[in-house]
């Protein structure tokens, strides 16, 4: 098994910790000097960067949340002048303002090498033909994997998302060996191949690098079996750098976090307290080398746990388990982040009152479906079928444009949505992932 940067990926724990401390202190000195948001926040709490003398002292510092990024929209959290930024990416921004992140030339280089690390760990090398079936654009996914592949020296096919039959044609004709996509899209491809009467095992495909949404071990087995490949998971989020924060090696027992570039903590999402190694909780990440967009204690809202045991592959970098859910109520539907509050806002905007509603998420085949059930109230009560249909259409259209994901809207009888402590159970997720 190849290792991209063994001098870092296999560092003894003691050396990792010394390097982390040095880089953490330098990062704090820089953000304190260059980013107003951090400086004011530290000052409010009576903290100066010098108070951090050990990695454990990180716990003294305040968290950074998505809300902070929104408040500092667009460039408020940048630590370098805009002229040094060579790339801007952004999150979906379905509620109000999106979040904007920037990269310097050096950041892009680091990003590429971090992706090269996990791609190498997954078994990709310079002989591979990598088909990238992530959407290019403001999202970080496609670009990250694109650069990582190029750095390794593999041949990149920048397909983009969708157009499944063309994907399959290219996969056959161009002799793709590595597929990059969301796990659910890999299933879609497998299904389509079956329909088209193509035997995936007759193809040259050997590895799949899947990320962008949570998926289960069962789904891994299904993909591996149906496509006849090795499927590995990787993790990242655009606020921190994009894909490349962590990725699985071929042992497939957790994703190695690149600890020379990030410090990972697990906290109790309710109290914010740091939990001991091995505990399940919310992942908090601090960047150590980013120039344009450093992040101190960013709350990812992803629930996972960390395993510091040495891995059989030889890498010493800590492994995070597959994410097990979210500490907020965000749903990932067809790869798009959806908050129930967004739907509340839509309903409020249309009717001026807040009806009880319930979201039912399901997975038909490999595709997510969203159903919104709304309890009938006096405001939303129609004698005429025509008016009712017009109302439902209006809600569906609005939801589609706000969320970026289509939904089926249904009216249900008053009090038919079960209440827990007076509040309706907002979300039912029937997906088995």
């Amino acid at each position, binding site marked *: 098994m190849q290792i991209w940067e063994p001098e870092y990926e296999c560092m003894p724990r003691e*050396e990792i910790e*010394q*390097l982390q*401390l*040095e*880089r953490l*202190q*330098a990062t704090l*000195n*820089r953000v304190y*000097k260059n980013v107003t948001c951090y400086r004011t926040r530290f000052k409010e709490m009576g903290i100066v*960067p*010098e108070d*951090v*003398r*050990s990695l454990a002292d990180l716990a003294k510092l305040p968290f950074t949340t998505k809300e902070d990024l929104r408040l500092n929209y667009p*460039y408020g959290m940048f630590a*370098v*002048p*805009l*002229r*040094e930024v060579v790339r801007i990416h952004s999150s979906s921004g379905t509620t109000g303002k999106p979040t904007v992140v920037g990269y*310097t*030339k*050096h950041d892009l*280089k680091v990003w590429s090498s971090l992706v090269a690390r996990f791609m190498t760990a997954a078994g990709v090398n310079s002989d591979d033909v990598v088909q990238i079936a992530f959407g290019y654009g403001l999202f970080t996914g496609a670009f990250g994997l694109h650069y990582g592949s190029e750095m390794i020296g593999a041949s990149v096919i920048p397909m983009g998302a969708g157009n499944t039959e063309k994907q399959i044609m290219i996969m056959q004709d161009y002799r793709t060996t590595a597929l990059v996509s969301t796990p659910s899209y890999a299933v879609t491809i497998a299904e389509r191949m079956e329909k088209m009467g193509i035997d995936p095992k007759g193809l040259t495909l050997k590895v799949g690098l899947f990320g962008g949404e949570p998926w289960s071990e069962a789904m891994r087995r299904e993909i591996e079996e149906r496509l006849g490949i090795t499927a590995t998971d990787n993790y990242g989020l655009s606020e921190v750098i994009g894909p490349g924060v962590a990725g699985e090696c071929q042992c497939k027992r957790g994703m190695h976090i690149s600890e020379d570039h990030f410090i990972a903590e697990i906290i109790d999402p309710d109290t914010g307290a740091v939990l001991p190694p091995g505990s399940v909780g919310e992942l908090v990440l601090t960047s150590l*080398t980013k*120039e344009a967009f450093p992040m101190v204690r960013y709350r990812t809202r992803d629930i996972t746990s960390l395993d510091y045991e040495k891995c059989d592959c030889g890498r010493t970098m800590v492994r995070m388990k597959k994410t097990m859910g979210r500490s907020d109520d965000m749903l990932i539907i067809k790869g798009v982040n959806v908050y129930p509050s967004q739907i509340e806002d839509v309903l409020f905007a249309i009717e001026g009152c807040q009806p009880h509603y319930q979201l039912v998420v399901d997975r038909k085949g490999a595709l997510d479906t969203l159903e919104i059930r709304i309890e009938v109230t006096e405001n939303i009560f129609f004698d005429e079928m025509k008016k009712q249909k017009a109302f439902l259409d209006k809600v569906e259209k609005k939801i589609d444009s706000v969320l970026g994901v289509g939904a089926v809207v249904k009216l249900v009888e008053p009090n038919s949505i079960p209440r827990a402590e007076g509040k309706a159970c907002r979300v039912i997720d029937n997906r088995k992932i």
Partner: protein
Amino acid sequence: MLKIKNINAYYGKVHALKNVSLHLKAGEIVTLIGANGAGKTTLLNTLSGIIPTASGEILLEGKDIVGQAADRVVSLGLSQVPEGRQVFNPLMVEENLELGAYLRYRAGGQRNEIAVDLERMYQMFPRLKERRRQAAGTLSGGEQQMLAIGRALMARPKLLLLDEPSMGLAPLVVQDIFKVIERLRREEGTTILLVEQNARAALKVADRGYVLETGKVILEGKASELLENKDVQRAYLGRDKKEIWER
């Protein structure tokens, strides 16, 4: 080789080093760059025991050397080539070199090895051999710098601290000095911590670097990456000088 955690040091009431942490691996050349007064020389002096460490940890091959007297630090394997050479002007070149091995001489039993090392120095710096009987004060600046380095090497250090070796020297001589630094690592395997105003030259020979600003480390990275860093270019390499910060 060397591991420093959170050292703080004061010059009178001035807090000259604030929580500085850094490390050197065996055989590495690491450079410290920063403006005047950033704390580079203070850091070297703290390491070699000339300035007291107010707090923090300095581990040389795992041994804590905080609070050790300067001579003890030298015998533990750390030698410093001070800023401005500081050779003993009235003494002969050879005497200067011999003084570098004073601690070994006093400990006894190493006389032959010292003589061998002296020959090695003459091989490395043939000019010093030519002028072995000359008073050090009569040497040119470049020769004095070679002598200062040779004198430090006579203590057989595992870690060599070089403070501004190119200061006040003509460009061609500076090139020679940097060649010596590269040779030391290549031929002797010496680990080197280099402080330089000439940031570009230092970053070219070094593996890694730390950027100090008002007593704090603000950047750590591979030397090649620091050369390309815009902050470093603006502040220490003399590029983009006129451009101002805008937001």
